[in-house]
């Protein structure tokens, strides 16, 4: 058991993507198998010692314990992300547009309209960029969060208010955004409407 505890503690800290408190680690165990708090603390301490001389280290921060890349090693590892930023997916842009036009809106409502699940990653990206935030909760089972756009969203896109966005009627006008739209999305050939009409001419037209 003690080796399993050590394994779980390490795996959780490495995969969490952020700090974990002792309580959060304890919460990973079902009540009947839950170790003593002291045992968890000892496992964390042992883990920290085992990282001596390695590229990573265990630190205690306000939010709990965190494994991070050692400062001396960070310059190399940081280069992992230096490359040109990727483009946002169509799914993300659709989600953003729906939040802008239908706010305050729950994730479930976005999914209903889009017809596919909205990944947590998308919500996270939009909130991290501070374009979107939670403004409340709907008081229905599950109390889903209500998302709305932010001041930063308006600023980024040069809008004074949401009223500066084109109306849906304008948007529907094929002339409105200019001629051939598909040419504008060279990086996303596989996400475009082409996919939908593949093999079944006529059937996917509603997606175009």
């Amino acid at each position, binding site marked *: 058991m003690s080796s399993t505890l050590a394994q779980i503690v390490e795996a959780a800290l490495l995969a969490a993507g952020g700090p974990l408190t002792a309580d959060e680690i304890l919460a990973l165990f079902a009540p009947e198998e839950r170790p003593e708090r002291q045992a968890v603390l000892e496992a964390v301490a042992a883990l920290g010692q085992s990282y001596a001389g390695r590229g990573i280290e265990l630190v205690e921060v306000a939010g709990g314990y965190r494994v991070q890349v050692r400062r001396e090693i960070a310059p190399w590892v*940081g280069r992992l*992300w230096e490359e040109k*930023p990727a483009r*946002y997916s169509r799914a993300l842009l659709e989600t953003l547009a729906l939040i802008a036009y239908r706010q*305050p809106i729950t994730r479930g409502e976005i999914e*209903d309209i*889009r017809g596919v699940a909205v990944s947590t990653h998308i919500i996270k990206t939009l909130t991290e960029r501070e374009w979107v935030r939670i403004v409340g909760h709907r008081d229905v089972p599950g109390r889903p969060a209500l998302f709305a756009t932010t001041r930063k969203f308006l600023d980024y896109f040069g809008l004074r208010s949401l009223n500066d966005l084109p*109306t849906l009627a304008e*948007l529907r006008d094929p002339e409105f955004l200019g001629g051939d739209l598909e040419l504008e999305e060279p990086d996303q050939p596989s996400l475009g409407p082409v996919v939908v009409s593949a093999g079944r001419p006529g059937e996917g037209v509603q997606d175009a």
Partner: protein
Amino acid sequence: MSAEVLADAPALAPAHPAQQELPFAIVQGTPLLALPEDLYIPPDALEVFLDAFEGPLDLLLYLIKRQNLDILDIPIAEITDQYMEYVELMKDLRLELAAEYLVMAAMLAEIKSRMLLPRPSEAPEEEDPRAELVRRLQEYERFKRAAEDLDALPRLERDLFATQVEVPPGHVRRLPPEVDLREVLLALRGVLARADLFTSHRVAREALSLRERMSLVLDRVRSAGGFVDFVRLFELHEGRAGVVVTFLALLELIRGASLELVQTEPFAPIHVRLRGATE
């Protein structure tokens, strides 16, 4: 990289579990494997039953496996009759039956009639009328299996989690992508084309200012601790139109179960409160 290095790689999951007959209903804990003939089936239930099949080939496979028949030597008359029973039942109940089921019914009927024709012995090379169906059933079955095998593979987010250790700040310059408003609008146009939700009679421009106001009101109530005096939500300098928009936003939020109005006694001040607020 040699394989030894990765000796700790997870062993592939064992092959799919033994093929088991698929119960289409569970009644008081007992799986029901066949439709009792005299049973009245509410249309809803049959719809669920139908949903359990991925199409006519899947239904046929089910009928074959249910009776432990060899897929290579299907008693076509029997299977056709059973298949037709399902189709007729579904038709009787006016369920929306995918066209593929009817196409298959026609194909089965045709095979059945060809099987009845005497086959001249001097032409042994003539293909068995069932050959095409058997080929299709086998082909479908192998991919049905392949899908199960695929599902059994250990996969990210369910069985495996990639590590994501953080890098101390200052060393990563992760530039977020630039986005053109046009791209966002194009994406929305795509959604618009797919969803008819927007085809309501709401006037879009008004709806948008209403939507914005809804977010603002919600935020106001929230930052005021979830409880605010009703009248304080209105900005009189906005004039009549502004007050109306705020009022409509409030109504929408109440309707959407986000806010509620509270009045402790008649003629007491009205307050607006976040519903179920325990954040």
